[in-house]
Structures are given as structure tokens and as C-alpha cells.
């Protein structure tokens, strides 16, 4: 279930000028995060201004993407019509070691693998739309 060869294509993100470096990084199998040059906090999702101090001095940094499952669910009915055929969906929120959280899908896993606190690492999923999604898998 939920392996990375997608039989159904989820709705794709459409990057903005602000978020483009994040998505470009994924295409190159790099996880790029913004860090504030002023308060040194990490910021996700990508922004023009730091969500901790509102500084616009945000720098892109490559990070390992190591983190843990903060929470998850197994959606046994599609969460929206475009996901029909993908159920059960292993939807999760992952917290990176930098502290930021992000929505994702847990790939290459079984139901019993899904636990709060389990260590995970990035799994770059290249889609036929030339867009790369950031799934995670057990570390």
C-alpha cells in the first residue's frame, strides 16, 4: 500500500515565486528549508517573512529531512474525490528535527508501522507531471 509508484495521481501543487526553491529542491532530491537570518528559527511552509519575527531575511538551507511521525491517520474512505482509488491513505504530520511540521504521506509502510514518534526520512516521489512530492518512509 502507498508505495511510490502512484497509480492515481493526487492533485499537484502549483509553486509560487516564493515556494519555487522548495519544489525545485525536491526535484533534485534535496529538502530545502528556510531559516531566518535574524532570529535563526526555521520556517515552514516557505514564506516571504519569518513566522517567528516577521523578518524578510530568510535563507534557504538544505536539511537532512530526518524527523518523526507527530501524528497520522489511515483514511479508509477517500478524503476527497481526486484520492479515490488511493485508499487507505496513510496521511501523516511529520516533525523534522529542525522543529517544523509538515503534511505528508507515509510510503513503503504497513498499517502496523504507523506510530506516533516513529523515526522517518524523506522519500522523494517523482510524478509523471514532472512534480516531486515529499513523502516520508521509516528511517
Amino acid at each position, binding site marked *: 500500500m502507498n508505495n511510490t509508484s502512484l497509480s492515481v495521481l*493526487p*492533485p*499537484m*501543487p*502549483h*509553486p*509560487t515565486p516564493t*515556494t519555487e526553491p522548495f519544489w525545485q529542491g525536491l526535484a533534485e532530491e534535496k529538502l530545502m528549508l528556510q531559516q531566518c537570518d535574524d532570529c535563526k528559527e526555521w520556517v515552514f*511552509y516557505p514564506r516571504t517573512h519569518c513566522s517567528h519575527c516577521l523578518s524578510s531575511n530568510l535563507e534557504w538551507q538544505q536539511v537532512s529531512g530526518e524527523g518523526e511521525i*507527530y*501524528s*497520522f*491517520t*489511515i*483514511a*479508509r*474512505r477517500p*478524503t*476527497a*474525490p481526486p*484520492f479515490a482509488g*488511493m485508499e487507505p*491513505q496513510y*496521511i*501523516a*504530520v511529520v516533525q523534522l528535527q529542525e522543529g517544523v*511540521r*509538515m*503534511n*505528508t*504521506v507515509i510510503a513503503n509502510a504497513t498499517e502496523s508501522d504507523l*506510530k*506516533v*514518534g516513529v523515526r522517518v526520512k524523506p522519500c522523494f516521489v517523482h510524478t509523471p507531471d514532472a512534480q516531486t*512530492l515529499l*513523502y516520508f518512509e521509516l528511517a
Partner: protein
Amino acid sequence: MGLKGEAAIVGVADYKNERKYTGPRHFFTEQFADLTHRALVDAGLDKNDLDGICCTAIREANMFAPATLAEYLGLKVNFAEIVDLGGATPVGMIWRAAAAIEMGICQAVICAIPARPIPSNPIPSPTADDLRFYGSTSANWGSPQAEFDVPYGNVAQNSGYAMIAQRYAALHGYDERALAKIAADQRSNAQANPNAAFYGKPASIDDVLASPVIADPLHILEIVMPCAGGGAVLVVDKALAAKSKNRPAYITGCGERLESKSMTYQDDMTRTPVGPASQSAFAMAGKKPADIDVVEPYDCYTITVLLTLEDSGFCAKGDGMKFVTEHDLTYNGDFPVNTHGGQLGAGQAGLAGGMSQVIEGARQIMGKADDRQLSRCDTALVTGTGGIMSEQSAIILEGG
């Protein structure tokens, strides 16, 4: 600081909740006028008393909703407000109306939310359906949700609330019978509410647990049923409250807290914004949880009720499952919760779903809750929850 308790709810109106609405269809302007008329009749007050309007977005107009509605109703108002807080909207409307009245800029504010289907458009717009596709999640380009929620399927509400419940389970354990009891007790309350979508259809704890799991650990009977309906609440100053034929339900405390849109980014998914909102309401009213006769918490999911009871201070964090197990939450019980059935028992009529909790709190204080009337009800805590437990409001009502 805060409300002085000089504005009161004196009239309410609601449509019967119906899963399949087959009655005549009317636009939101028309439903708003009808609900307003009914609330005025309930209060024994007159259209000419109205000088304030509080609404949500309406289907007929993307902008200028208060002006469109005021013009349609023939109102000249000193307070025109639109509230956009999802399920927290109704509670947010009531305290804004009370605050405007206490400022002295108006004397009577109608807060109404139509939620019946409107007439079918002979020239259908595809965007209307696109907007509904992902529920509360915006798929518009440039919306953070479109880029960072939608592609991963964390859309609408079920998956977010399920993840809140899973996180809670990992930290505090999970007694699924306790969660199911919330739904069962409220369904029991709905049996005394002929306007409830599940009137005549009780459900036991076992029934809830036997229903299909939609997103682990949520069963379908722990999730609200969408339906048609609508509700209105009339908030007035002391002078008009004295003229009303109902016992006024004074708004003596309020609070509001918004922390994010997606629950993903909340500091702690299991400590919800209703904590600060309720604490503000209690402090303003000079009350504590033990003073409350009835709790009408927003209940889109069973986990919403559990966390609202904990975060509002009725029991400690992590003790909610024990608390609901040890108390009878029905209108005959020792800790009445959502005496009309809540939205889990009565159905969720869109944004008017949360208005049902305000209306029921007021009706209990007015002594107009029919077969489910509590023997004594002088104080009520009403909460509203929007987003994925990410924006919440609370008010305390007290009988005059």
C-alpha cells in the same frame, strides 16, 4: 475589561434539520429575512427595534453581504458585521453583537445563518462545486493549503481531526468506548428534539463502535451528518430585554483564540485554542466550570467534545475519557452536554450547526427547551470550533 453582561439573547429561531431537504428553495437573502422575522416573533419585538446585522458570507454575493442583507430586509443599521470563523462563527457573532451593544452604537443585532439549499441555478457555475470539493481546505493558487495540504490528501476535516485523536491516544491512551459514549449520550438527547436529524433514531455505544471507521480512529457515527437547516439569534440591550417576552440570556463572558488554519502547525495538537477562549469567558463572567449548569460545546467530532471539556477546565488534560465515562451527559444526567443532541445527534446544518448550540443554551435558560428542559438552568457555556480545532470561541450565558 470585557463584557459587562448588559446585552442578552431574547429571541431565537431555527429550521428543522433535514438530511434531504425537499421543501421550497429560497436564496440566503430570503432565508435570512424569514429567520429574522421568526426570531423577532419569538422575542416579542419589532423590526423597527433592529439596528444591527451580523452575517456570514452569502451564496448570492461574493462581497457586500451585510449591505445586501440589510437592503433586502429594509434595515438601516449602525452595526454591520460579517464573521468568517468556520464553526466558531456563530459564537463569534454573538459576542461581537454584545460588544457593539455595550459600546452603545446599537441596541438590537440579528445574527442569522441560513443553511438550506438555494434554488438550482439555470446557469451553473463550476467554481461553486470546486470550492466544496475540499471542504474547509482552499485549493486556490497561492493558498498554502493548495500546495502543502491538498497534494498529500490532508483535506477537509476528517483527516485532521483523526490525527488530533491519534496524537491524543499516543499521549494519554485511548478508550474508544468513552469517545463513543459522547456520541451515544448526545444521540439520546436528540430523542427529545423533534428538529434533530436523528430524532427517532437512538444509537448505543456498541452501535457507534460497529459503524465503519472513516479515518482511524474515527467511526462514522463520531462524525457529524451534514444537513439543511438554519438558525438566528437576536441580541439586544437591557431596555429591549426588559420588553421581551422571554427570560433574557445575558452574555456575561466571552473569549476567542485562533492559532492557525491547518492543525499541522499548532504548537500542541492536543491543547486546543478553546482553552484560552473559555478561560477568558470564565474570567470575564466571574464564573468557574463548577458554576455551569449546561455545556453546549461545538461537536463536529467526539474528540472535539472531549478536548473542549478538558481544555475548558471541567477536568484535567488526559482525564476526559474517565470524566465522560463517569458522568451522564444526557438532559436527565448529572453533567448535561449538548442537550438538543448537539450536531452529532441533530445534524450539522453548515455554518448554522454551531448556532444550534447558542440557541439551545439560550432556550435552556429561557425555560423553553420542551421535553429536554433542565430543572434548573441559570448558566450555560457555549463554544464554537472552526478550522481543524484551530479557531475557537466561547461565551457564557446567564439568566436575567
